[in-house]
């Protein structure tokens, strides 16, 4: 039932809130043992004593309890710790105390590398070394001893017809194993090798247009029998330049790799020392 009571908004709200507060207090009364509950919590949770009156919370001074260590004990402890750290190396007057054992050991590879790299490797030396390695690798040179007499080697050859028998335009080869003439010596010229053979037609005998090859004997046929690549013992003269270029490139690559390793070791040791390396200059 509606009444005509004209209550203002504020009054209505005030009344409503007061009624509500009474209702809520009735619904949630304060416990009878509130004091005991609070004091139990205070004694069990609050450990620090209250400050004396007048001081604020921020003025409260908290003491940090630290063990009192004498100066001499601190020095001794520090010395023992440092000695333990430096234990791999003997403590001598010459030893730099600032260096760590790890730094000392790290310097050694650098020194070893420097000894090796004291003389820079030239391209020629590298190429010659590589050339030797290549020749050994390809096994072009026979495993036979160099002291074996040539005549004995040639004796193993089959009969070689003369150019007269062959006629013009026919190539003649000296057979036997492909390495019989090559392992006379690395530097021995080819003409000398051929000259030492007993049965060797000269270019004059063969006539113009006739090429002379060293290789396996093969049945004489009307056409040119191409040689297998692996059967050619020395590097042909026209390919010598290419081979040398290849070897030079390989040697250069090796040199670059070695330099990169040196730079890496240098950067690593500089990093340990805390030094700053200058930027590398690119040579090309």
């Amino acid at each position: 039932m509606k009444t005509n009571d004209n209550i203002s908004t504020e009054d209505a709200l005030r009344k409503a809130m007061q009624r509500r507060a009474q209702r809520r207090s009735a619904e949630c009364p304060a416990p009878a043992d509130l004091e005991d509950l609070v004091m139990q919590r205070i004694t069990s949770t609050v450990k620090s004593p209250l400050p004396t009156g007048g001081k604020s919370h921020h003025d409260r001074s908290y003491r940090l309890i630290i063990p009192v260590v004498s100066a001499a004990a601190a020095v001794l402890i520090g010395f023992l710790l440092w000695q333990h750290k430096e234990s791999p190396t003997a403590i001598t007057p010459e030893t730099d105390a600032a260096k760590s054992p790890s730094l000392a050991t790290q310097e050694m590879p650098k020194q070893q590398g420097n000894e090796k790299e004291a003389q820079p490797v030239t391209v020629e030396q590298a190429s010659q070394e590589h050339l030797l390695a290549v020749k050994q690798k390809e096994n072009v040179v026979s495993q036979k001893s160099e002291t074996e007499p040539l005549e004995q080697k040639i004796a193993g050859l089959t009969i070689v017809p003369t150019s007269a028998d062959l006629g013009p335009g026919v190539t003649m080869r000296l057979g036997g194993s492909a390495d019989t003439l090559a392992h006379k010596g690395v530097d021995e010229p080819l003409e000398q090798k051929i000259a030492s053979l007993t049965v060797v037609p000269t270019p004059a005998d063969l006539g113009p247009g006739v090429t002379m090859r060293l290789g396996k004997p093969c049945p004489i046929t009307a056409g040119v029998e191409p040689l297998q690549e692996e059967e050619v013992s020395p590097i042909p003269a026209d390919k010598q330049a290419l081979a040398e270029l290849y070897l030079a490139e390989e040697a250069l690559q090796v040199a670059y790799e070695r330099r990169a390793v040196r730079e890496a070791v240098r950067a690593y040791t500089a990093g340990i020392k805390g030094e700053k390396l200058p930027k590398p200059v690119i040579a090309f």
Partner: protein
Amino acid sequence: MQADERELIQDILSGRTEAFGQLVRQHGGALTSFVASFVSQQADVEEVVQQAFVAAFEHLGQYDANRASFQTWLWRIAHHTALKHLTRRRQFFIEEHEQAAQNLTDDDDGSMFEQATDSRVRLLEYATDQLPPDDQLLLHLYYAEERSLNDIAYILDSNANALSSRLYRIRQRLAQLIKHFEHEDE
């Protein structure tokens, strides 16, 4: 502030912890009513009241009698403690109330209150229960406790201007809720 109360606080700060029990006896009822005005569950009310008293004991050295009464200072601690407690328990249901508020428009200016009746008062009570706890508390402090906006600003850690604006918005929201409830009854 009463002289007895001031001496009591001085005794507690001097080390007489058991004297704090007397403060609990003096302010326990009012503090419980205060917390119950915006915390719905009884278990939560009791827990918040106890935590508030413990916090007041721990920070008793910070209390400044010149700034506010001990009860006002205690209610401020209780409000902060309740916020932490209810946030942890997720009992604010702010999202729920905000969703309800979004469905209402702001066209009403609250003129319906000019014809307030007992039924409207009851509706106001019911509508207040639907508000967020902080709004309930503001209404309780302003209308039931009849505290000044400066006092309420201290308790709620706000400022008087913001509270005034908030009161206006709460009144609008209440009017809309009442209209909504009245339409449901018809």
